[in-house]
């Protein structure tokens, strides 16, 4: 029903009866269904990946339970985000931004921060929960840039250079902090978001070209640096132990590809992937979650997962296109760029076409912050859609 509602909505835009709208009816149900299905699949995969890690004295379901709590919290936050008033949101965006930048610095505070997989990007909370502020930072940067670049609200006018400069400063400041945290994946994603938002804002072509060039150079440099590190790590581990060192980057990438390749058309079935259950692939409940999908659900299952996330991106692009103001469009654009590059980086790493940087797979990976941030993004997309439909004449 949701799909047709969406199709019809464009025809009905001219009818005054649309004014006022209906929250439930006007939601993009396709977007919600795709994101929800991806979250369900993700929970199963997290369950399968984590139960192998938990030895008998621990409850093998404990990780799953924590994950489900996170999902519930994320859905609540997403719902709130969809109901926020635009004026309120725009007014408080600077506050959100400043708080985010400060929280980004918290992992550096001794006793508060935790280093996971080499990145000093987590805040330790009681009860075994951790928060990764850089995930929220992505939202804050998108909102802040949108506020600055859509300031004039005259859609035909291109943003002034000083606005673009300000937007850039707003983006680069957290980017530098994240870079210091060694979280290369988030840097790549924030960079892509920045370029996409500035481009869609209608900024002068010189800005876009200049940014694209510097981003590509920056990404190339980062990959280059990443590769250099991998090369060094490989050389070191192969010197110490010629066969298999579980910490070697080459080993991770090989094991990930063995897991995915082994799955074939239909996979080994949930809970039956030898690589997954044998814990041969590291962090397979988060960074390498896609290997679990590949091995246990096979090509069919993994392709469905890509398709679900693809649908989310398609709906987000549609929302950006139909947004009634520049603010909405820029927020939706930022979310598209964020989710698209994060998905590509995560899956591409498991498939061996992207360098290994630890980023979670949106909706799927374990990790509360990421889950919450992506569902807030869904809430914001719905918010923009509802706003566009309600503001129509």
């Amino acid at each position: 029903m949701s799909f047709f509602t969406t199709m019809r909505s464009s025809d009905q835009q001219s009818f005054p009866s649309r004014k006022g709208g209906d929250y439930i009816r006007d939601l993009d149900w396709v977007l919600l269904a795709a994101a929800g299905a991806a979250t369900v699949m993700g929970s199963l995969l997290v369950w399968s990946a984590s139960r192998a890690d938990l030895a008998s004295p621990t409850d093998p379901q404990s990780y799953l339970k924590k994950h489900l709590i996170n999902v519930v919290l994320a859905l609540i936050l997403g719902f709130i985000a969809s109901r926020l008033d635009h004026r309120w949101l725009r007014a408080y965006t600077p506050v959100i931004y400043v708080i985010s930048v400060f929280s980004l610095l918290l992992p550096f505070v001794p006793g508060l921060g935790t280093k996971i997989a080499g990145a000093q990007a987590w805040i330790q909370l009681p009860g075994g929960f951790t928060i990764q502020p850089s995930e929220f930072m992505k939202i804050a940067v998108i909102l802040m840039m949108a506020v600055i670049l859509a300031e004039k609200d005259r859609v035909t006018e291109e943003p002034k250079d000083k606005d673009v400069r300000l937007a850039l400063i707003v983006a680069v400041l957290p980017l530098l902090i994240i870079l210091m945290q060694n979280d290369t994946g988030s840097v790549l994603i924030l960079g892509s978001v920045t370029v996409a938002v500035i481009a869609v804002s209608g900024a002068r072509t010189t800005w876009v070209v200049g940014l694209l060039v510097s981003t590509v150079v920056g990404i190339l440099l980062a990959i280059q640096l990443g590769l250099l590190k991998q090369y060094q790590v490989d050389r070191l581990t192969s010197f110490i132990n010629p066969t298999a060192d579980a910490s070697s980057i080459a080993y991770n990438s090989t094991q990930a590809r063995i897991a995915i390749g082994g799955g074939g058309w239909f996979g080994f079935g949930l809970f039956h992937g030898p690589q997954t259950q044998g814990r041969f692939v590291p962090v397979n409940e988060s960074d390498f979650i896609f290997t679990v999908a590949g091995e246990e659900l096979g090509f069919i299952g993994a392709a469905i997962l890509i398709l679900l996330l693809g649908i989310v991106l398609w709906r987000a692009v549609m929302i950006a296109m139909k947004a009634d103001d520049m603010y909405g469009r820029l927020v939706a654009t930022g979310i598209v760029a964020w989710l698209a590059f994060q998905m590509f980086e995560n899956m591409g790493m498991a498939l061996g076409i992207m360098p290994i940087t630890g980023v979670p797979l949106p909706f799927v990976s374990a990790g509360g912050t990421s889950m919450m941030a992506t569902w807030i993004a869904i809430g914001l997309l719905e918010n923009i859609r509802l706003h566009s439909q309600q503001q129509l004449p």
Partner: protein
Amino acid sequence: MRDRSMLRLMVLGVLVFSLVLTLFARLFYLQVIESAKYESASANNSVREIVRPAVRGLILDQAGRPIVSNRTTLEVTVDRVALAREKDDGEAVLNRLALLLGTPVEKINDRLKTCGAEGAKPPPVCWNGSAYQPVPVANGIDPQTAINIMERSTDFTGVTAQLHANRIYPAPFNVNAAHILGYLGPVTESQLEAQGNSDAYDRLRRTDIVGRSGLEAQYDDALRGKPEVTSLAIDTAGHVTEKLGENAATPGNYLVSTIDARLQSVVESQLVNAVQRARSQGYPGKSGAAVVIDVTNGNVLAMASYPTYDPAIWVGGVTKKQYDALKSSDSLSSNAIQGTFAPGSTYKVVSTAAAGKQGFNLGGYYGCPEQYKAGNQTFRNFESHGYGTISLARALEVSCNTVFYGIADTMWKRGGGLDADRTAPDPIANMAKSFGLGTKTGVDLPGESSGRVASRLFKAENWDAKKDSWCANALDGYSETRKTNAKLADFYTALDKENCADGFRWREGDALNAAIGQGDTSVTPLQMAMVYSAIANGGTVYQPRVVKGIIGPEGKVVKNFTPEVKSTVAASKSTLAFLQRALPGVTLRGSGETPFAGFPLGQIPIASKTGSAQVTGNKVSTSWFASFAPANNPKYAVVMMVTEGGTGSKTSGPSVRKIYEALFGVNGRSVNPARSVLVGGAPKLDLPKVRSDGTPVAPKGKNSGVRG
């Protein structure tokens, strides 16, 4: 500008779409196109097998007596994976274990090292198996020690005491039969390679113990059974995550040999007696062999080789010292099937058959002068006797060489003499081949020699192969040898010069020597036994057997071997009948008379032929005694030989007589089949019974051969 914004948004959309498409394409490539490559990689990553070999099948003698059996002993194994999880890598556990077993801890540590690892001792000290397989460190421990280990399991993490089956040799009637039974040893690299990349659960594994010689090797597949294999999925830390599968063990099948333990025991001790008889005459008597064949089907009833070894020495692996001692004593190979020897006068039956085929009158009379002149060479009778003109039968009885020289000389000249080419007729060699000489008998034992038949063709082919080195040596003049011994170098040079020039020629002397089993002809004692069996049974050369059947561990007959004919002798019935009539004369009034003095030949006529073969380099001849009996209704063929043992009659003959006494139940002049060493007076044709619990039904009491 709104349009620019929209355009750029569309570009972003296309970019996102292409990213998603890229992921699809890559996923498809990895999972569908390259899937096969990764499937096996994943399987190797995480599956470990725990293998418990099946209990090996027994080997029974023809009457059902176990001659190779198993004994379960308590074995201590150490699981290195479990040790590695200990805080001190299991050092404390191993120290405690060493104290309990009373062995130095270094010895246990040496045993636990994987072969090929740094600092590992050579096998059998090091562990030749997988890291996940518990390593046996002590065998045959007493039950109290085992109980100690099992009760204090917290002190002995990873240490287990369990039952383990080892080969034992019940040795009924003190039988040895080492060369027939063979022994076990670790699987060889070539065996592992030969099976390729098999992943069958019953494939050979590096830890497997397999038959390495004799019946243990020949029938390894049947005896070994199938192991119990548990496949476990393990994770990177070595923890078991899942039991993937389990194959139950299938115990090995039982072999039923044609060998009779009691007869074998008699033959073994009589062979030793013959060797001692040779030595008491002042001869070296270095080695020997004896074979008893059932002429009606080619079954080997007994087969002994001297010197021999204790088969039990191999149980649990031999030390390097033991192995070197076995090697240097020449006791590892079987003289009965692997040793080849000049047959001497026992070969005259072949020449006689060839003469019959060539139209020589078998009933005729031939000159037996003291010596025979061929060209400028003189060939003498053994011990230089002349008998005047005698019948061919008499020539066999007294083993007159010159009669056979005359016959061979005539054949050689008929065949074209010195200038005949290599394809010219060679009646004696052809007859020998039809008797199965020069080729393997096909006995079901590994490592058999084929022997050699001297002939025109052999000489020509030998020259083809060796002429280059002969000619080179003749030119060089043995310069190396010349430095130390000029005389020897001259001799060798002259020899090679001659060989180089016309070593391909089948000379008159070659033909004469060949007729009396000298020269290049060599045979295995088993081959000779098959020749006499064929004469006895009217011309059938059977493929000799050592195993007559295979029985499952629960008593079901798996295989019943039937006699197989290898060849038919190319001699007429009348020629064979002539030999059957003539050979008992050897025992009655010829060269075999002395050892059979007082034997009831009237009731059991013995057909025999003695042989005293000259061997280049040995001063003392090889003693042969080949025979079959009863000559009028042949049942058994008995052949015995002793190298450097003197005459056939003096050294081997008396022992062959004892074997016949045992076979027929002869005591003095009385014959009583009930006294035969064979239960029931004859070899059993059917297979003995094995009960469903695996116990063979063997003769009881005195006939069991087991004391107590």
